[in-house]
């Protein structure tokens, strides 16, 4: 058969060309990420781990989310299988409700759509089943592939739950540098950083990277770890605001523009906003979203 001789990639491309992504999904995926809300379907991403989830509850820092799969063949007995009519992907979704857990906001990457699941009401699962959803089945034994799927999702969610991008240091870095008489000129020379960065480090408004901590360790005669632990922690409210999906999209654009890793861009943006706010507003809690908007206007539109 001619199809048997067709190269794998060509077959894949031909198959993909026949797939039609629903307009609603394409629109949701390409739009700027909005504010997370219960019932939304999201792609989560942290390092190499990527999972699709449905949001069941949203707080300032976390989301309660259940993983979803577009393949319902290995769904366990706690999994709710939503028919195409109950979600905007217009395909069958296996919602692993038994694996729902709190995940940090920063892992939300792209919104894919919404599911009509009404999680605000108690007894929502029963109502979904009454409306046409079905349940998976109990694993038949240790060799049932359902176990493997469930385990893979559990490990992935464990990894996503551990995601942290903001440092939680003591803020003693500025004092350590002052005690060692390491001023901006010496820091520029020692760490090969720009004058504004050296100034921010000296004032305790920026954090050192592990590489920089290793260089400082010799000058300060302290272990790297102690120096990293002395990094300033940015305001918790600022970290909350910077962890929203909308900000992550901006951070990714910044990372692409500067050719750096996402995590580096996240830290650079956060410490810059933190430093700007510290200079401009004194001790009152700054209007973080305005500051962040200003920062990205300057860095992304210049």
């Amino acid at each position: 058969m001619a199809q048997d001789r067709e190269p794998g990639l060509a077959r894949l491309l031909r198959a993909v060309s026949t797939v039609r992504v629903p307009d609603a999904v394409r629109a949701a995926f390409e739009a700027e990420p909005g504010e997370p809300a219960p019932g939304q379907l999201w792609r989560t991403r942290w390092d190499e781990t990527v999972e699709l989830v449905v949001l069941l509850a949203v707080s300032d820092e976390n989301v309660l989310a259940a993983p979803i799969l577009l393949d319902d063949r290995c769904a366990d007995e706690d999994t709710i299988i939503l028919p195409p009519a109950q979600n905007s992907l217009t395909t069958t979704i296996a919602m692993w409700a038994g694996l729902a857990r709190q995940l940090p906001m920063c892992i939300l990457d792209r919104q894919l759509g919404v599911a009509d699941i009404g999680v605000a009401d108690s007894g929502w699962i029963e109502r979904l089943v009454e409306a046409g959803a079905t349940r998976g089945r109990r694993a038949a034994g240790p060799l049932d592939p359902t176990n493997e799927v469930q385990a893979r999702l559990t490990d992935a969610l464990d990894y996503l739950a551990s995601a942290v991008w903001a440092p939680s240091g003591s803020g003693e870095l500025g004092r350590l540098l002052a005690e060692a008489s390491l001023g901006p000129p010496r820091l520029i020379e020692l760490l090969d950083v720009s004058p504004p960065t050296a100034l921010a480090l000296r004032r305790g408004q920026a954090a050192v990277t592990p590489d920089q901590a290793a260089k400082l360790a010799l000058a300060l005669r302290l272990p790297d770890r102690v120096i990293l632990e002395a990094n300033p922690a940015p305001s918790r409210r600022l970290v909350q605001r910077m962890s929203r999906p909308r900000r992550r999209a901006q951070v990714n654009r910044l990372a692409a523009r500067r050719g750096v890793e996402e995590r580096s861009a996240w830290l650079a943006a956060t410490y810059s906003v933190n430093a700007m706010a510290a200079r401009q507003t004194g001790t009152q809690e700054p209007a973080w979203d305005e500051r962040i908007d200003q920062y990205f206007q300057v860095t992304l539109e210049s």
Partner: protein
Amino acid sequence: MTTGFADVAGGERTEDTALRAHLFFDGLTMAERRLLPFLAEPQRWSVLLDVGPSVARVAGQSLIEKVRLATVDDADRDEMVMELVRLCVRADGS
């Protein structure tokens, strides 16, 4: 005194055990071959397979069940498992 009959029967049984162990071994994945000698040490499964703890647990339990089903009602069960361990260790070292 050992009879010739007993010698032949014992030898056949050993050969049969080795053959069945080989057949079972041939059907194992590379990950299962790596895991089999350590089935009694579940705390090492995750590192050995380089996967998360849940996936490692399922892989280990699944392999234990496979071995159990392959040796159930088998008089030479222990010998066959020992032969499997030898084959897996040899394959891992080669």
